């Protein structure tokens, strides 16, 4: 391949720029906003090298390797989700994640796929966040089942999502959705909140 010297890259644009630029209150105290992703990669390990690759990732970012496909592990800068037995989705607060990992993982051990612009992350926080998501997500989002720091990969209105209950706020979720679905997901979310708040019963259900 022909490679030349790189120039500074402009900021990427939001897939939701046409509908929102900041936090939106969906119901009383329940807000949603895009939480930009600086970088995101998929790290896959070959069958005989999973332990080694995961260990390398752990050492590279100084994090514990996720033990299962439910609990994330991370640091201030990096969150690692084990999205499949031999695959990690690593989300970084800083760019250049890809080059860091490509340098660490040999091709004979695994692969690193650049996915930094493939997903949109939404932060849904406030009372009723789990109830609102339960309008679409066929997984139990109760805190006893999905405690802070854990995640679930599921589907909402036919759109694949990863739902991560974050510890930063009392009832808050980061939702990762494929970029091409972001507008439809936003529409589903706002429409569901609108319907849920149309009657006292609907509002009460969110407030439970």
């Amino acid at each position, binding site marked *: 391949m022909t*490679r030349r010297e790189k120039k500074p890259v402009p900021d990427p644009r939001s897939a939701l720029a046409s509908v929102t630029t900041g936090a939106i209150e969906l119901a009383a105290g329940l807000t949603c906003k895009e939480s930009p992703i600086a970088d995101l990669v998929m790290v896959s390990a*070959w069958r005989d090298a999973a332990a080694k690759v995961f260990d390398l990732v752990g050492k590279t970012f100084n994090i514990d390797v996720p033990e299962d496909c439910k609990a994330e592990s991370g640091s201030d800068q990096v969150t690692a989700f084990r999205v499949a037995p031999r695959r990690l989705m690593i989300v970084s607060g800083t760019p250049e994640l890809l080059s860091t990992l490509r340098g660490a993982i040999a091709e004979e051990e695994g692969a690193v796929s650049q996915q930094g612009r493939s997903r949109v992350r939404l932060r849904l926080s406030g009372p009723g966040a789990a109830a609102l998501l339960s309008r679409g997500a066929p997984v139990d989002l109760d805190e006893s089942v999905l405690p802070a720091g854990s995640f679930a990969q599921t589907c909402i209105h036919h759109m694949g999502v990863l739902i991560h209950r974050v510890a930063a706020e009392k009832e808050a979720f980061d939702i990762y959705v494929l970029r091409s679905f972001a507008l439809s997901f936003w529409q589903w979310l706002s429409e569901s909140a609108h319907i849920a708040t149309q009657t006292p019963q609907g509002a009460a259900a969110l407030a439970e």
Partner: protein
Amino acid sequence: MADASTRLGGYGRIDHGKPVSFTFNGRKMTGRAGDTLASALLANGIRLVARSFKYHRPRGIYAMGVDEPNALVTLNTGARTEPNTQATTVYLYEGLSARSQNCWPSLGFDAMSINDKFSRFLAAGFYYKTFMGPTRKSWMFYEHFIRKAAGMGEATTLDDPDFYEKVHGFCDVMVVGGGPAGLSAAVNAARAGACVVLVEQSPDLGGGLLNMPAGGKADRWIAKQVAFLREAQNVRILNRCSVFGSYDHGSFGLVERLQDHVFPPQKAVLRQRMWTMRARRTILATGALERPIVFGGNDLPGVMLASAARGYLNHFSVLAGRKVVVFTNNDSAYLTASDMAQAGAAVTLVDARPISPSVACARAEKSGVTVRSGHAVAQASGRKRITSVKIAQFDCENGTARDPGKVMQCDLLCLSGGWNPTLHLLWQHGGKPVFDDALATFVPGATIEDGFSVAGSANGRYSTLDCVLDGQAKGLEAAQACGFDLPDGSDDYPALDLTDGWETQLLPVWEVCDSAGKSQKKAFVDLQHDVSVSDLALAHREGYVSAEHLKRYTTLGMASDQGKTANVIALALLAKHRGQTIPEVGFTTFRPPFTPVAVGALAGHETGPNIEPRRHTPMRQWHLDNGAKFIETGIWDRAWYYPKPGEDIEAAYIREARELRKSVGVVDVSTLGKIDVQGPDAAEFLNRVYVNGWSKLPVGKARYGVMLREDGMVFDDGTTTRLSEHHYFMTVTTAGAGAVMSYLEFLLQTCWSDLKVEVTSATDQWAAVAVSGPKTRDLLSSIDSDIDFSNEALPFMGAAEGTMAGLPVRAIRITFTGELGYEIYTPAGFGEALQEAIAAAGSAHDLLMLGIEAFGALRVEKGHVAGSEITGRTTLDDLGLARMGSTNKHHIGQVLARREALTSSDRQQFVGLRPVDPKAVIKGGSILSEPDETPKGHGLGYVTAMAFSPVVGSTIGLGLLSGGRARIGSTVNVVDTVDDTIIPAHVTTPHFYDPEGEKARA
């Protein structure tokens, strides 16, 4: 039509101080808060409520809940019209309007009641036998009139103004039914610590206990349980909510009615909520439904289930009759008789059994009831309501009424033929019922489905104490199965012991025949569908001896009540005809829904534009801002064309296609499926999935590839670029992306787990534009970039990585239009900026915005295969791509592609079509036939795609034509069977433009 009010003071659980106004058939009436429409109608003296489905017979209120077969009404008007609603399940609200259906000109005088006079000709199967000729299409003609003559209410075609939502719920223990067993089960499961959901279809908890006189021990017990449950943090009570379906792995469909009990306001409301509930354990405490006994005239208004009459009295404070006959074969109806006598009615209880239960009988007689043991009601009479019954001695052996009998005047006949446990949810899920001879009904088997338990009268325990104890045990058992338990030393929770009269065994009585043993006329089994005992006999005579066939032939057990009062009786009568026992006859399959569910609730807000999610490319907003018209292509929204003022789609795409071949155009191809393929074995992997070879593809080069399915048919095509030694970038078709990705993962995980290869979808990661046309290089070279777009540096099928306008890009020199072209990829967040940069530079190069309509037209001109040719029924050779197939390696589909039928020379092959008359228009989907021949069947093939070609100067088509390549140079007829046109066309190669590909290599 109406009698004096039958509302009693001092009875019931309604709010006597709160009148509620409503209308029935336009007449203003008043009910009370807490009434159902049925109880309010009874309170207003209304007995005739509806006309029956087929014979238009007068019908009244028969039951008190979801088992009501008769009293179907249409609620409200306009967009909120709700037909076929059981009056027994509608809770009254101020302003409710209800009207009868299936009657004209009025309920009282219904012209179509003449059907009843001809009922002997309108038996089961009448329509099938009578209206099938003389031609095959005759039914279409008759159907219009038949639908007018028989049927139910009419749905509105207006948009539903209200909202519906869908919710997923989870719990450890779901208890279905809030009667004594359900309350006990929920309390005990909650005490043990399980997360409990208690579902009750009525507004109030208590179930059958609410049919007992108000203010007693039962009410105090209910209040205590409800208080406990409402207080508990681990309990959710869903009232006005029905579990309508039972599905796999402990999942259930529930519909919660949030607004159906209040007058709908002008604005839209959240009307219903559909729950998908997933429970680790489910306790069915769904009670039992009373069944009637069949005899002549048993459908008249004023014939009612005994438990319903008791409920109307004790719950709704309505005495449904003053001269009451109660006909029973079991103990439970004695309570009805006693309560009604105490409320002031003259009551005669007719018990088919020779000996009455002593305690219950004594209590009834003390209340003033006249008890006639060993007798039966042989016939009910009256015109629009019951006026008398014939009571006769009953012969238990033969099930016959002995002559002469005695006629007794009455205004209400209450029936109790026993009880059927409500086990629909268990049986929907595949549970097998067992017939209990003592109860003469079906009960749960000794082993039931995993995750289920059944408590209370649903389990064949009919006394209140048994229900409570059974509920408590099942509640604790379910909680324990989920890992919870009562704390050590927990007290037994107080039970409820009521004297509810279950002393002696019932006598199975299904039908009362005349003294000669014959069934009587107008003896109905399924009241909602007008299925009589003679229909069942006819079906049996005609060979419908299986329960399932009987159901379909007679329609018994179908419609909104799902035969809740009819099914077991029908099986018993079928058994009699077959000379078998009921278990030998078998059982029909139960399917959801248990009760009717509004389609709106199933849809939620997935209607209109929200019916499915759409996918958008990163440049969507740019296209909108620049005047693009959009089209839905599968799940993607794509820029279709960019009209100039006054242009329609036709004019715009032809202009765009024409101009592109002179200048340069850009089209958004971000929808292409993109797959990141990495690993030391990536080349071997590609060798196996593509028909052509990949090992020798140099880094920095792209190659067109085709995949086959295992059966040898073409699966998908696209271009794959080698980015580095072990890293490839695969593109697949927009439509095939998901299927290809799944298939590749399947292969790697199951067939070739030894390969060190990883595939990752990169469709959303990359935005892409295809820039093509003779001026492309001029345009791209004018944009600030470190990529050299010259022919030498980036030849045809070459690839480079670098930047354009400061954006990271991959440029691959490939083209779909046949012109000099490049696909430029950039991470999706920069897609719009890339589009802007190209557009900004384009003003100096006559840059054309191209929609996918023109893009498609250009591919037709160029003769590339696409989705309309890769149909799953075409081979490599069919598509003219046989030369691509490598013989030096194995690939998927290679062996089966050699099958004789797949290599036949007369297979339909990919060709071009040009009309002999340039003005003629070839239409997509047209059938191809020999010249001067009317096409037969599927003809010789068909047109897969068409477009107007500026290059050719006419419409052109691509097609699949039998032995097509050998026919090049000949003509065929292009036959459009829709518009009935025939166009002669030349058969050509599919490549109308630059067949040598010189433009693309320029």
